[in-house]
Protein backbone atom coordinates (compact mmCIF):
# COMPACT_ATOMS: atom_id res chain seq x y z
CA UNK A 1 0.00 0.00 0.00
CA UNK A 2 1.39 3.40 -0.95
CA UNK A 3 1.45 6.02 1.81
CA UNK A 4 0.63 9.70 1.98
CA UNK A 5 2.99 12.52 1.08
CA UNK A 6 2.58 14.88 4.03
CA UNK A 7 4.04 17.94 2.38
CA UNK A 8 1.98 17.50 -0.77
CA UNK A 9 -1.09 17.02 1.43
CA UNK A 10 -0.31 20.27 3.24
CA UNK A 11 0.03 22.09 -0.08
CA UNK A 12 -3.29 20.64 -1.18
CA UNK A 13 -4.97 21.72 2.06
CA UNK A 14 -3.93 25.34 1.72
CA UNK A 15 -4.84 25.38 -1.96
CA UNK A 16 -8.23 24.00 -1.06
CA UNK A 17 -8.81 26.72 1.53
CA UNK A 18 -7.87 29.29 -1.08
CA UNK A 19 -10.32 27.75 -3.55
CA UNK A 20 -13.17 27.69 -1.05
CA UNK A 21 -12.48 31.21 0.22
CA UNK A 22 -11.95 32.83 -3.17
CA UNK A 23 -14.51 34.36 -5.52
CA UNK A 24 -15.83 32.50 -8.51
CA UNK A 25 -13.32 33.90 -10.99
CA UNK A 26 -10.22 33.21 -8.94
CA UNK A 27 -11.59 29.80 -8.04
CA UNK A 28 -11.99 28.95 -11.72
CA UNK A 29 -8.44 30.10 -12.46
CA UNK A 30 -6.95 28.02 -9.64
CA UNK A 31 -8.94 24.92 -10.52
CA UNK A 32 -8.04 25.26 -14.20
CA UNK A 33 -4.35 25.41 -13.31
CA UNK A 34 -4.76 22.31 -11.15
CA UNK A 35 -6.62 20.46 -13.88
CA UNK A 36 -4.05 21.36 -16.52
CA UNK A 37 -1.25 20.16 -14.25
CA UNK A 38 -3.14 16.91 -13.81
CA UNK A 39 -3.55 16.58 -17.58
CA UNK A 40 0.16 17.13 -18.07
CA UNK A 41 0.87 14.35 -15.55
CA UNK A 42 -1.54 12.07 -17.38
CA UNK A 43 0.10 12.85 -20.70
CA UNK A 44 3.52 12.01 -19.29
CA UNK A 45 2.28 8.82 -17.64
CA UNK A 46 0.70 7.59 -20.85
CA UNK A 47 3.57 8.47 -23.14
CA UNK A 48 6.08 6.91 -20.71
CA UNK A 49 4.01 3.76 -20.30
CA UNK A 50 3.17 3.59 -23.99
CA UNK A 51 -0.44 2.87 -23.11
CA UNK A 52 -3.47 4.32 -21.36
CA UNK A 53 -6.87 5.87 -22.04
CA UNK A 54 -6.08 9.46 -22.78
CA UNK A 55 -9.44 10.51 -24.23
CA UNK A 56 -11.50 9.53 -21.21
CA UNK A 57 -8.79 10.71 -18.81
CA UNK A 58 -8.99 14.21 -20.23
CA UNK A 59 -12.79 14.32 -20.28
CA UNK A 60 -13.01 13.40 -16.58
CA UNK A 61 -10.09 15.51 -15.31
CA UNK A 62 -12.09 18.65 -14.54
CA UNK A 63 -14.71 16.61 -12.66
CA UNK A 64 -12.04 14.94 -10.53
CA UNK A 65 -10.29 18.24 -9.88
CA UNK A 66 -13.50 19.87 -8.65
CA UNK A 67 -14.40 16.89 -6.47
CA UNK A 68 -11.05 16.67 -4.71
CA UNK A 69 -10.10 20.35 -4.64
CA UNK A 70 -13.44 21.95 -3.91
CA UNK A 71 -16.15 19.51 -2.84
CA UNK A 72 -15.24 16.33 -1.01
CA UNK A 73 -14.40 15.95 2.65
CA UNK A 74 -11.34 13.69 2.55
CA UNK A 75 -8.05 13.46 4.40
CA UNK A 76 -5.19 12.17 2.22
CA UNK A 77 -3.29 11.23 5.36
CA UNK A 78 -6.19 9.19 6.72
CA UNK A 79 -7.73 7.75 3.59
CA UNK A 80 -9.86 5.09 5.31
CA UNK A 81 -11.37 7.37 7.94
CA UNK A 82 -14.88 6.02 8.33
CA UNK A 83 -16.81 9.27 7.94
CA UNK A 84 -14.90 10.39 4.85
CA UNK A 85 -16.68 11.30 1.69
CA UNK A 86 -16.23 8.42 -0.72
CA UNK A 87 -15.16 8.66 -4.34
CA UNK A 88 -15.53 5.78 -6.78
CA UNK A 89 -14.27 5.93 -10.34
CA UNK A 90 -16.48 3.44 -12.07
CA UNK A 91 -14.80 4.10 -15.42
CA UNK A 92 -11.68 2.42 -14.05
CA UNK A 93 -9.83 2.55 -17.34
CA UNK A 94 -9.26 6.24 -16.60
CA UNK A 95 -7.01 5.27 -13.72
CA UNK A 96 -4.28 7.70 -14.84
CA UNK A 97 -6.60 10.64 -14.19
CA UNK A 98 -7.48 9.28 -10.75
CA UNK A 99 -3.86 8.53 -9.81
CA UNK A 100 -2.74 11.95 -10.91
CA UNK A 101 -5.53 13.65 -8.94
CA UNK A 102 -4.81 11.57 -5.83
CA UNK A 103 -1.07 12.22 -6.02
CA UNK A 104 -1.57 15.96 -6.45
CA UNK A 105 -3.75 15.85 -3.33
CA UNK A 106 -1.07 14.07 -1.30
CA UNK A 107 -2.56 10.58 -1.05
CA UNK A 108 0.83 9.28 -2.26
CA UNK A 109 3.98 10.88 -3.68
CA UNK A 110 3.72 12.47 -7.13
CA UNK A 111 6.97 10.70 -8.04
CA UNK A 112 5.07 7.40 -7.87
CA UNK A 113 3.22 8.43 -11.06
CA UNK A 114 6.43 7.62 -12.95
CA UNK A 115 5.75 3.93 -12.28
CA UNK A 116 2.36 3.93 -14.03
CA UNK A 117 1.86 0.44 -15.51
CA UNK A 118 5.52 -0.48 -14.98
CA UNK A 119 6.16 -4.07 -13.82
CA UNK A 120 4.98 -4.57 -10.19
CA UNK A 121 3.85 -0.94 -9.86
CA UNK A 122 0.99 -0.21 -7.46
CA UNK A 123 -0.41 1.88 -10.30
CA UNK A 124 -2.00 -0.78 -12.47
CA UNK A 125 -3.93 0.07 -15.61
CA UNK A 126 -7.04 -0.13 -13.43
CA UNK A 127 -7.19 1.06 -9.82
CA UNK A 128 -6.60 -1.32 -6.90
CA UNK A 129 -7.75 -0.26 -3.44
CA UNK A 130 -5.47 -2.78 -1.78
CA UNK A 131 -2.44 -0.88 -3.09
CA UNK A 132 -3.49 2.70 -3.70
CA UNK A 133 -4.83 4.95 -0.92
CA UNK A 134 -7.86 6.93 -2.02
CA UNK A 135 -9.13 4.10 -4.21
CA UNK A 136 -12.36 2.77 -2.68
CA UNK A 137 -13.03 -0.27 -4.84
CA UNK A 138 -11.37 -2.04 -7.74
CA UNK A 139 -12.96 -1.10 -11.04
CA UNK A 140 -12.23 -1.91 -14.64
CA UNK A 141 -15.09 -4.08 -15.79
CA UNK A 142 -17.85 -1.56 -16.44
CA UNK A 143 -21.03 -1.26 -14.43
CA UNK A 144 -19.39 -2.08 -11.09
CA UNK A 145 -18.79 1.27 -9.41
CA UNK A 146 -22.37 2.45 -9.10
CA UNK A 147 -23.67 -0.62 -7.19
CA UNK A 148 -20.72 -0.35 -4.80
CA UNK A 149 -21.44 3.36 -4.38
CA UNK A 150 -25.07 2.55 -3.57
CA UNK A 151 -23.96 0.07 -0.90
CA UNK A 152 -21.50 2.58 0.52
CA UNK A 153 -24.22 5.23 0.67
CA UNK A 154 -26.60 2.83 2.44
CA UNK A 155 -23.81 2.01 4.88
CA UNK A 156 -23.06 5.67 5.59
CA UNK A 157 -26.74 6.24 6.32
CA UNK A 158 -26.89 3.25 8.65
CA UNK A 159 -23.83 4.55 10.48
CA UNK A 160 -25.33 8.04 10.37
CA UNK A 161 -21.88 9.57 9.86
CA UNK A 162 -22.80 12.23 7.32
CA UNK A 163 -20.53 10.84 4.61
CA UNK A 164 -21.41 11.62 1.00
CA UNK A 165 -20.70 9.22 -1.83
CA UNK A 166 -19.65 10.30 -5.32
CA UNK A 167 -19.33 7.96 -8.28
CA UNK A 168 -18.27 8.82 -11.82
CA UNK A 169 -19.42 6.57 -14.62
CA UNK A 170 -18.64 6.80 -18.27
CA UNK A 171 -21.61 7.47 -20.51
CA UNK A 172 -21.06 4.39 -22.65
CA UNK A 173 -20.94 2.50 -19.37
CA UNK A 174 -24.59 3.38 -18.79
CA UNK A 175 -25.35 0.65 -21.32
CA UNK A 176 -24.56 -1.86 -18.55
CA UNK A 177 -27.72 -3.20 -16.93
CA UNK A 178 -26.15 -3.34 -13.47
CA UNK A 179 -26.13 0.47 -13.39
CA UNK A 180 -29.89 0.60 -13.80
CA UNK A 181 -30.35 -2.04 -11.10
CA UNK A 182 -28.30 0.23 -8.85
CA UNK A 183 -30.20 3.40 -9.76
CA UNK A 184 -33.47 1.66 -9.02
CA UNK A 185 -32.34 0.74 -5.54
CA UNK A 186 -30.67 4.13 -4.96
CA UNK A 187 -33.95 5.96 -5.42
CA UNK A 188 -35.94 3.30 -3.59
CA UNK A 189 -33.60 3.70 -0.62
CA UNK A 190 -33.83 7.53 -0.90
CA UNK A 191 -30.05 7.89 -0.92
CA UNK A 192 -29.81 11.67 -0.76
CA UNK A 193 -26.13 11.23 0.17
CA UNK A 194 -25.32 9.75 -3.25
CA UNK A 195 -24.25 11.69 -6.34
CA UNK A 196 -23.74 9.91 -9.66
CA UNK A 197 -21.79 11.88 -12.23
CA UNK A 198 -22.08 10.68 -15.82
CA UNK A 199 -19.08 11.77 -17.86
CA UNK A 200 -21.15 12.47 -20.97
CA UNK A 201 -18.49 12.72 -23.67
CA UNK A 202 -20.72 10.91 -26.17
CA UNK A 203 -17.95 8.58 -27.34
CA UNK A 204 -17.26 5.00 -26.42
CA UNK A 205 -14.38 2.80 -27.51
CA UNK A 206 -15.76 1.96 -30.93
CA UNK A 207 -18.01 4.83 -31.95
CA UNK A 208 -20.39 7.54 -30.73
CA UNK A 209 -22.71 6.39 -27.97
CA UNK A 210 -25.76 7.46 -29.92
CA UNK A 211 -24.67 5.39 -32.92
CA UNK A 212 -23.87 2.36 -30.77
CA UNK A 213 -26.72 1.97 -28.30
CA UNK A 214 -28.22 5.40 -27.75
CA UNK A 215 -28.57 6.76 -24.22
CA UNK A 216 -30.74 9.80 -24.92
CA UNK A 217 -32.92 11.07 -23.49
CA UNK A 218 -30.49 10.33 -20.65
CA UNK A 219 -31.88 13.06 -18.40
CA UNK A 220 -35.43 11.76 -18.71
CA UNK A 221 -34.26 8.20 -18.18
CA UNK A 222 -32.37 9.09 -15.02
CA UNK A 223 -35.34 11.14 -13.78
CA UNK A 224 -37.67 8.22 -14.49
CA UNK A 225 -35.43 6.11 -12.24
CA UNK A 226 -36.03 8.58 -9.43
CA UNK A 227 -32.90 10.71 -9.63
CA UNK A 228 -32.68 14.44 -9.06
CA UNK A 229 -31.09 15.27 -12.42
CA UNK A 230 -28.72 18.17 -13.05
CA UNK A 231 -27.22 18.84 -16.47
CA UNK A 232 -23.99 20.77 -16.48
CA UNK A 233 -21.00 21.75 -18.60
CA UNK A 234 -18.45 19.25 -17.31
CA UNK A 235 -15.60 21.65 -17.96
CA UNK A 236 -17.08 24.66 -16.12
CA UNK A 237 -15.61 24.58 -12.63
CA UNK A 238 -18.13 26.79 -10.87
CA UNK A 239 -21.08 25.11 -12.55
CA UNK A 240 -19.69 21.71 -11.53
CA UNK A 241 -19.31 22.86 -7.92
CA UNK A 242 -22.91 23.99 -7.95
CA UNK A 243 -24.13 20.74 -9.53
CA UNK A 244 -22.29 18.71 -6.89
CA UNK A 245 -24.15 20.34 -3.98
CA UNK A 246 -26.22 17.97 -1.85
CA UNK A 247 -29.63 16.73 -2.88
CA UNK A 248 -32.44 19.21 -2.45
CA UNK A 249 -35.30 16.76 -2.93
CA UNK A 250 -34.30 13.81 -0.76
CA UNK A 251 -33.56 11.77 -3.88
CA UNK A 252 -30.13 10.72 -5.07
CA UNK A 253 -28.53 13.18 -7.47
CA UNK A 254 -27.48 12.41 -11.04
CA UNK A 255 -25.24 14.96 -12.72
CA UNK A 256 -24.97 14.68 -16.47
CA UNK A 257 -21.63 16.36 -17.08
CA UNK A 258 -21.43 17.24 -20.76
CA UNK A 259 -17.78 16.82 -21.60
CA UNK A 260 -15.41 16.59 -24.53
CA UNK A 261 -13.41 13.41 -24.78
CA UNK A 262 -9.74 14.42 -24.97
CA UNK A 263 -10.52 17.89 -23.58
CA UNK A 264 -7.57 20.28 -23.70
CA UNK A 265 -5.64 18.96 -26.68
CA UNK A 266 -6.98 20.00 -30.08
CA UNK A 267 -6.07 16.92 -32.09
CA UNK A 268 -7.39 14.54 -29.42
CA UNK A 269 -10.67 16.26 -28.68
CA UNK A 270 -13.85 14.43 -29.67
CA UNK A 271 -12.11 11.86 -31.83
CA UNK A 272 -13.04 8.24 -31.37
CA UNK A 273 -9.61 6.90 -32.28
CA UNK A 274 -8.11 8.60 -29.22
CA UNK A 275 -9.90 6.28 -26.78
CA UNK A 276 -6.60 4.63 -26.01
CA UNK A 277 -4.17 5.84 -28.64
CA UNK A 278 -0.75 7.02 -27.48
CA UNK A 279 0.64 10.32 -28.84
CA UNK A 280 3.81 10.27 -30.94
CA UNK A 281 6.81 12.27 -29.75
CA UNK A 282 5.84 15.21 -31.92
CA UNK A 283 2.22 15.05 -30.82
CA UNK A 284 3.33 14.87 -27.19
CA UNK A 285 5.28 18.13 -27.53
CA UNK A 286 2.30 19.84 -29.09
CA UNK A 287 0.00 18.46 -26.40
CA UNK A 288 2.27 19.75 -23.63
CA UNK A 289 2.24 23.20 -25.25
CA UNK A 290 -1.54 23.24 -25.45
CA UNK A 291 -1.82 22.15 -21.81
CA UNK A 292 0.65 24.75 -20.51
Amino acid at each position, binding site marked *: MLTADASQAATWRSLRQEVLAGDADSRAVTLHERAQATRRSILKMITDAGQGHIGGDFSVTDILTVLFDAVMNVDPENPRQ*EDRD*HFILSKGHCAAALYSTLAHSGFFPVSELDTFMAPLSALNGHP*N*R*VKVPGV*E*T*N*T*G*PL*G*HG*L*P*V*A*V*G*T*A*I*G*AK*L*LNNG*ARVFVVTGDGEMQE*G*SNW*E*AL*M*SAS*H*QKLDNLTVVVDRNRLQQGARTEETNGLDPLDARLAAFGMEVRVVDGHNYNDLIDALRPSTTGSPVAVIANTIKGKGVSFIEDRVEWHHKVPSQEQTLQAFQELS
Partner: protein
Amino acid sequence: MTTTTVLNDAPTFDNRQDFADELIALARTNDRIVAVCNDSVGSSNLTKFRDEFPDRLINVGIAEQNMVGVGAGLANAGLIPFVCAAGPFLTGRSLEQIKADVAYSQHNVILCGMSPGMAYGELGPTHHSVEDFSWLRPLPGLDIVVPADGAQTRAAVRNAVADPRPTYIRVGRFKVPHVSEDNVGLERGKFVVAREGTDVTIIATGTEVSRALWAAASLASEGVSARVLNATYLSPLDEEAIKDAARQTGAIVTAEEANVAGGLGAAVASVVGQLEDGARVPMRILGLNHFAPTGSTAFLLDHFGLTADHITAAAREVLHRD
Protein backbone atom coordinates in the same frame (compact mmCIF):
# COMPACT_ATOMS: atom_id res chain seq x y z
CA MET B 1 -9.08 -41.64 17.95
CA THR B 2 -11.89 -39.70 16.33
CA THR B 3 -14.92 -41.70 15.40
CA THR B 4 -18.10 -39.89 14.53
CA THR B 5 -21.09 -42.17 14.34
CA VAL B 6 -24.23 -41.20 12.48
CA LEU B 7 -27.13 -43.58 12.69
CA ASN B 8 -28.84 -44.49 9.44
CA ASP B 9 -32.16 -43.30 10.83
CA ALA B 10 -30.77 -40.18 12.54
CA PRO B 11 -33.06 -37.13 12.40
CA THR B 12 -32.19 -34.62 9.69
CA PHE B 13 -32.20 -30.82 9.65
CA ASP B 14 -32.23 -27.83 7.29
CA ASN B 15 -29.08 -25.75 7.98
CA ARG B 16 -30.79 -22.49 7.07
CA GLN B 17 -32.51 -22.40 10.44
CA ASP B 18 -29.23 -22.55 12.34
CA PHE B 19 -27.80 -19.95 9.98
CA ALA B 20 -30.62 -17.50 10.66
CA ASP B 21 -30.66 -18.10 14.41
CA GLU B 22 -26.91 -17.57 14.76
CA LEU B 23 -26.97 -14.45 12.58
CA ILE B 24 -29.75 -12.92 14.67
CA ALA B 25 -27.99 -13.81 17.94
CA LEU B 26 -24.79 -12.11 16.78
CA ALA B 27 -26.64 -9.12 15.32
CA ARG B 28 -28.12 -8.39 18.74
CA THR B 29 -24.69 -7.55 20.10
CA ASN B 30 -23.00 -6.30 16.92
CA ASP B 31 -24.87 -3.53 15.14
CA ARG B 32 -22.46 -3.63 12.19
CA ILE B 33 -24.01 -6.88 10.98
CA VAL B 34 -26.40 -6.33 8.07
CA ALA B 35 -28.08 -8.68 5.63
CA VAL B 36 -28.59 -8.11 1.92
CA CYS B 37 -30.87 -10.19 -0.26
CA ASN B 38 -32.51 -10.37 -3.66
CA ASP B 39 -36.18 -10.67 -2.70
CA SER B 40 -35.21 -13.95 -1.01
CA VAL B 41 -36.30 -12.90 2.49
CA GLY B 42 -38.26 -16.12 2.92
CA SER B 43 -36.02 -18.57 1.09
CA SER B 44 -32.94 -17.13 2.82
CA ASN B 45 -34.74 -17.53 6.19
CA LEU B 46 -34.34 -13.81 6.90
CA THR B 47 -37.92 -13.09 7.98
CA LYS B 48 -37.06 -13.06 11.68
CA PHE B 49 -33.95 -10.99 11.03
CA ARG B 50 -36.07 -8.44 9.17
CA ASP B 51 -38.65 -8.33 11.94
CA GLU B 52 -36.01 -7.66 14.56
CA PHE B 53 -33.72 -5.40 12.51
CA PRO B 54 -35.87 -3.84 9.79
CA ASP B 55 -33.26 -1.20 8.87
CA ARG B 56 -30.49 -3.75 8.64
CA LEU B 57 -32.07 -5.98 6.02
CA ILE B 58 -31.40 -4.47 2.61
CA ASN B 59 -33.57 -6.09 0.00
CA VAL B 60 -32.40 -4.90 -3.42
CA GLY B 61 -35.06 -6.86 -5.25
CA ILE B 62 -34.36 -9.29 -8.05
CA ALA B 63 -31.02 -7.80 -9.06
CA GLU B 64 -28.09 -9.98 -8.11
CA GLN B 65 -25.30 -7.96 -9.71
CA ASN B 66 -26.38 -4.91 -7.76
CA MET B 67 -26.84 -7.08 -4.66
CA VAL B 68 -23.18 -8.14 -4.56
CA GLY B 69 -21.98 -4.62 -5.44
CA VAL B 70 -24.13 -3.22 -2.64
CA GLY B 71 -22.60 -5.79 -0.29
CA ALA B 72 -19.11 -4.60 -1.26
CA GLY B 73 -20.18 -1.00 -0.69
CA LEU B 74 -21.59 -1.78 2.74
CA ALA B 75 -18.28 -3.39 3.68
CA ASN B 76 -16.49 -0.34 2.28
CA ALA B 77 -18.57 1.85 4.59
CA GLY B 78 -17.54 -0.25 7.61
CA LEU B 79 -20.34 -2.80 8.01
CA ILE B 80 -20.32 -6.62 8.00
CA PRO B 81 -22.69 -7.62 5.20
CA PHE B 82 -24.15 -11.11 4.83
CA VAL B 83 -25.30 -11.26 1.21
CA CYS B 84 -27.87 -14.01 0.93
CA ALA B 85 -29.39 -15.51 -2.18
CA ALA B 86 -30.02 -18.89 -3.73
CA GLY B 87 -26.61 -20.27 -4.64
CA PRO B 88 -27.04 -20.45 -8.42
CA PHE B 89 -28.09 -16.81 -8.79
CA LEU B 90 -25.62 -15.49 -6.23
CA THR B 91 -22.60 -17.15 -7.81
CA GLY B 92 -23.62 -17.46 -11.44
CA ARG B 93 -25.34 -14.16 -12.12
CA SER B 94 -22.89 -12.06 -10.10
CA LEU B 95 -19.65 -13.91 -10.72
CA GLU B 96 -17.83 -10.84 -12.02
CA GLN B 97 -18.98 -8.82 -9.00
CA ILE B 98 -17.70 -11.57 -6.71
CA LYS B 99 -14.38 -11.50 -8.56
CA ALA B 100 -13.84 -7.75 -8.85
CA ASP B 101 -15.88 -6.19 -6.03
CA VAL B 102 -15.33 -8.82 -3.34
CA ALA B 103 -12.24 -11.00 -3.93
CA TYR B 104 -9.98 -8.62 -5.86
CA SER B 105 -11.11 -5.54 -3.92
CA GLN B 106 -10.82 -7.46 -0.64
CA HIS B 107 -14.09 -6.07 0.62
CA ASN B 108 -15.17 -8.15 3.61
CA VAL B 109 -18.43 -9.49 2.23
CA ILE B 110 -19.93 -12.75 3.47
CA LEU B 111 -21.62 -14.38 0.49
CA CYS B 112 -24.21 -16.91 1.62
CA GLY B 113 -25.18 -19.38 -1.07
CA MET B 114 -28.54 -20.60 0.15
CA SER B 115 -29.97 -23.98 -0.85
CA PRO B 116 -26.83 -25.01 -2.73
CA GLY B 117 -26.08 -28.18 -4.62
CA MET B 118 -29.22 -29.84 -5.96
CA ALA B 119 -31.41 -28.77 -3.04
CA TYR B 120 -33.98 -27.47 -5.52
CA GLY B 121 -34.28 -30.97 -7.00
CA GLU B 122 -37.07 -31.00 -9.56
CA LEU B 123 -36.67 -27.27 -10.35
CA GLY B 124 -33.73 -28.38 -12.41
CA PRO B 125 -30.24 -27.29 -13.40
CA THR B 126 -31.10 -23.58 -13.64
CA HIS B 127 -31.75 -23.70 -9.90
CA HIS B 128 -28.94 -26.04 -8.94
CA SER B 129 -25.75 -24.55 -7.56
CA VAL B 130 -23.25 -27.23 -8.49
CA GLU B 131 -20.75 -25.04 -10.35
CA ASP B 132 -20.04 -22.73 -7.39
CA PHE B 133 -16.88 -24.55 -6.28
CA SER B 134 -15.51 -24.50 -9.82
CA TRP B 135 -16.33 -20.81 -10.27
CA LEU B 136 -15.09 -19.57 -6.92
CA ARG B 137 -12.02 -21.70 -6.17
CA PRO B 138 -9.83 -19.76 -8.62
CA LEU B 139 -10.54 -16.45 -6.87
CA PRO B 140 -7.59 -15.59 -4.59
CA GLY B 141 -8.52 -14.15 -1.22
CA LEU B 142 -12.01 -15.65 -1.13
CA ASP B 143 -12.66 -18.23 1.57
CA ILE B 144 -15.03 -21.07 0.66
CA VAL B 145 -16.75 -22.70 3.61
CA VAL B 146 -19.01 -25.74 3.33
CA PRO B 147 -20.58 -26.61 6.67
CA ALA B 148 -21.81 -30.19 6.93
CA ASP B 149 -24.53 -29.57 9.50
CA GLY B 150 -26.26 -26.93 11.58
CA ALA B 151 -23.58 -26.62 14.26
CA GLN B 152 -20.90 -26.09 11.62
CA THR B 153 -23.12 -23.58 9.85
CA ARG B 154 -23.34 -21.61 13.10
CA ALA B 155 -19.55 -21.83 13.46
CA ALA B 156 -19.07 -20.51 9.93
CA VAL B 157 -21.27 -17.50 10.74
CA ARG B 158 -19.36 -16.86 13.98
CA ASN B 159 -16.01 -17.07 12.15
CA ALA B 160 -17.22 -14.55 9.56
CA VAL B 161 -18.17 -12.03 12.23
CA ALA B 162 -15.12 -12.58 14.42
CA ASP B 163 -12.69 -12.18 11.53
CA PRO B 164 -14.49 -10.59 8.58
CA ARG B 165 -12.92 -11.40 5.22
CA PRO B 166 -14.25 -12.16 1.75
CA THR B 167 -16.08 -15.44 2.24
CA TYR B 168 -18.53 -17.74 0.49
CA ILE B 169 -20.58 -20.04 2.73
CA ARG B 170 -22.79 -22.81 1.43
CA VAL B 171 -25.93 -22.81 3.58
CA GLY B 172 -27.63 -26.16 3.01
CA ARG B 173 -31.36 -26.71 2.66
CA PHE B 174 -31.38 -30.45 1.94
CA LYS B 175 -31.89 -32.02 5.34
CA VAL B 176 -28.83 -33.70 6.81
CA PRO B 177 -28.10 -35.44 10.12
CA HIS B 178 -25.83 -33.85 12.69
CA VAL B 179 -22.20 -34.89 12.27
CA SER B 180 -20.73 -32.64 14.93
CA GLU B 181 -21.34 -31.55 18.51
CA ASP B 182 -23.35 -28.45 19.34
CA ASN B 183 -21.15 -25.36 19.63
CA VAL B 184 -18.39 -26.97 17.57
CA GLY B 185 -15.81 -24.55 16.18
CA LEU B 186 -14.34 -24.50 12.70
CA GLU B 187 -10.68 -23.75 12.16
CA ARG B 188 -10.07 -21.68 9.05
CA GLY B 189 -8.37 -23.69 6.33
CA LYS B 190 -8.55 -27.00 8.17
CA PHE B 191 -10.47 -30.13 7.35
CA VAL B 192 -12.21 -31.84 10.26
CA VAL B 193 -11.15 -35.41 10.94
CA ALA B 194 -14.55 -37.03 11.27
CA ARG B 195 -13.14 -40.53 11.59
CA GLU B 196 -9.64 -41.87 11.81
CA GLY B 197 -8.58 -44.65 9.46
CA THR B 198 -5.53 -46.19 7.85
CA ASP B 199 -6.51 -48.03 4.64
CA VAL B 200 -8.26 -45.36 2.58
CA THR B 201 -9.40 -41.76 3.02
CA ILE B 202 -12.79 -40.42 2.07
CA ILE B 203 -12.77 -36.64 1.71
CA ALA B 204 -16.34 -35.41 1.67
CA THR B 205 -18.00 -32.04 1.88
CA GLY B 206 -21.44 -30.73 2.85
CA THR B 207 -24.24 -33.22 2.34
CA GLU B 208 -21.75 -35.97 1.55
CA VAL B 209 -20.11 -36.02 4.97
CA SER B 210 -22.78 -38.08 6.72
CA ARG B 211 -22.84 -40.41 3.72
CA ALA B 212 -19.07 -40.81 3.92
CA LEU B 213 -19.42 -41.75 7.59
CA TRP B 214 -22.02 -44.37 6.72
CA ALA B 215 -19.68 -45.69 4.05
CA ALA B 216 -16.82 -45.85 6.55
CA ALA B 217 -18.96 -47.80 9.00
CA SER B 218 -19.89 -50.21 6.25
CA LEU B 219 -16.24 -50.60 5.21
CA ALA B 220 -15.29 -51.24 8.83
CA SER B 221 -17.62 -54.24 8.87
CA GLU B 222 -15.58 -55.60 5.93
CA GLY B 223 -12.35 -55.02 7.83
CA VAL B 224 -11.38 -51.83 5.95
CA SER B 225 -10.29 -48.87 8.05
CA ALA B 226 -11.48 -45.71 6.28
CA ARG B 227 -10.49 -42.21 7.36
CA VAL B 228 -13.15 -39.57 6.79
CA LEU B 229 -12.15 -35.95 6.33
CA ASN B 230 -14.89 -33.34 6.40
CA ALA B 231 -13.78 -30.65 3.95
CA THR B 232 -15.33 -27.69 5.75
CA TYR B 233 -13.02 -25.22 4.01
CA LEU B 234 -12.32 -25.62 0.30
CA SER B 235 -10.35 -22.36 0.37
CA PRO B 236 -7.88 -22.09 1.95
CA LEU B 237 -7.33 -25.76 1.16
CA ASP B 238 -5.94 -28.08 3.85
CA GLU B 239 -3.05 -29.38 1.78
CA GLU B 240 -1.37 -30.95 4.80
CA ALA B 241 -4.39 -33.10 5.60
CA ILE B 242 -4.53 -34.20 1.95
CA LYS B 243 -0.82 -35.05 1.89
CA ASP B 244 -1.14 -36.93 5.18
CA ALA B 245 -4.09 -38.88 3.79
CA ALA B 246 -2.11 -39.76 0.67
CA ARG B 247 0.99 -40.84 2.59
CA GLN B 248 -0.74 -42.60 5.45
CA THR B 249 -3.67 -44.32 3.73
CA GLY B 250 -2.49 -44.55 0.13
CA ALA B 251 -5.90 -44.21 -1.52
CA ILE B 252 -8.45 -41.39 -1.67
CA VAL B 253 -12.12 -41.03 -2.59
CA THR B 254 -13.72 -37.60 -2.76
CA ALA B 255 -17.44 -36.90 -2.67
CA GLU B 256 -19.18 -33.59 -3.34
CA GLU B 257 -22.62 -32.39 -4.39
CA ALA B 258 -21.02 -30.36 -7.15
CA ASN B 259 -19.61 -30.62 -10.62
CA VAL B 260 -16.32 -32.51 -10.66
CA ALA B 261 -14.69 -30.06 -13.09
CA GLY B 262 -12.82 -27.84 -10.69
CA GLY B 263 -14.46 -28.85 -7.43
CA LEU B 264 -13.24 -30.56 -4.26
CA GLY B 265 -12.00 -33.68 -6.04
CA ALA B 266 -10.04 -31.61 -8.54
CA ALA B 267 -8.51 -29.61 -5.69
CA VAL B 268 -7.47 -32.78 -3.89
CA ALA B 269 -6.12 -34.33 -7.10
CA SER B 270 -3.96 -31.28 -7.78
CA VAL B 271 -2.26 -31.84 -4.41
CA VAL B 272 -2.07 -35.62 -4.71
CA GLY B 273 -0.65 -35.40 -8.23
CA GLN B 274 2.19 -33.18 -7.06
CA LEU B 275 3.39 -34.95 -3.95
CA GLU B 276 7.04 -34.15 -3.25
CA ASP B 277 8.02 -37.83 -3.19
CA GLY B 278 6.26 -38.54 -6.49
CA ALA B 279 4.08 -41.18 -4.86
CA ARG B 280 1.14 -42.49 -6.89
CA VAL B 281 -2.11 -42.49 -5.02
CA PRO B 282 -5.22 -43.99 -6.62
CA MET B 283 -8.26 -41.71 -6.45
CA ARG B 284 -11.94 -41.71 -7.24
CA ILE B 285 -13.74 -38.39 -7.64
CA LEU B 286 -17.50 -38.58 -7.04
CA GLY B 287 -19.71 -35.75 -8.14
CA LEU B 288 -21.66 -34.39 -11.10
CA ASN B 289 -20.60 -34.42 -14.71
CA HIS B 290 -23.78 -33.47 -16.57
CA PHE B 291 -26.91 -31.35 -16.10
CA ALA B 292 -29.29 -33.13 -13.78
CA PRO B 293 -32.41 -34.81 -15.14
CA THR B 294 -35.73 -34.25 -13.37
CA GLY B 295 -35.84 -35.65 -9.88
CA SER B 296 -35.82 -34.96 -6.16
CA THR B 297 -32.57 -34.13 -4.43
CA ALA B 298 -32.35 -37.60 -2.94
CA PHE B 299 -33.08 -39.15 -6.32
CA LEU B 300 -30.41 -37.03 -7.99
CA LEU B 301 -27.78 -37.81 -5.36
CA ASP B 302 -28.40 -41.47 -6.16
CA HIS B 303 -28.43 -40.75 -9.91
CA PHE B 304 -25.00 -39.16 -9.71
CA GLY B 305 -23.50 -41.89 -7.52
CA LEU B 306 -23.37 -39.89 -4.32
CA THR B 307 -24.90 -42.34 -1.83
CA ALA B 308 -23.06 -44.18 0.95
CA ASP B 309 -23.16 -47.35 -1.17
CA HIS B 310 -21.49 -45.58 -4.07
CA ILE B 311 -18.80 -44.18 -1.78
CA THR B 312 -18.22 -47.64 -0.30
CA ALA B 313 -17.86 -49.16 -3.77
CA ALA B 314 -15.43 -46.44 -4.85
CA ALA B 315 -13.33 -47.05 -1.74
CA ARG B 316 -13.15 -50.75 -2.56
CA GLU B 317 -12.03 -49.90 -6.10
CA VAL B 318 -9.13 -47.71 -5.07
CA LEU B 319 -8.06 -50.24 -2.48
CA HIS B 320 -7.89 -53.02 -5.04
CA ARG B 321 -5.80 -51.07 -7.51
CA ASP B 322 -2.44 -51.71 -5.88
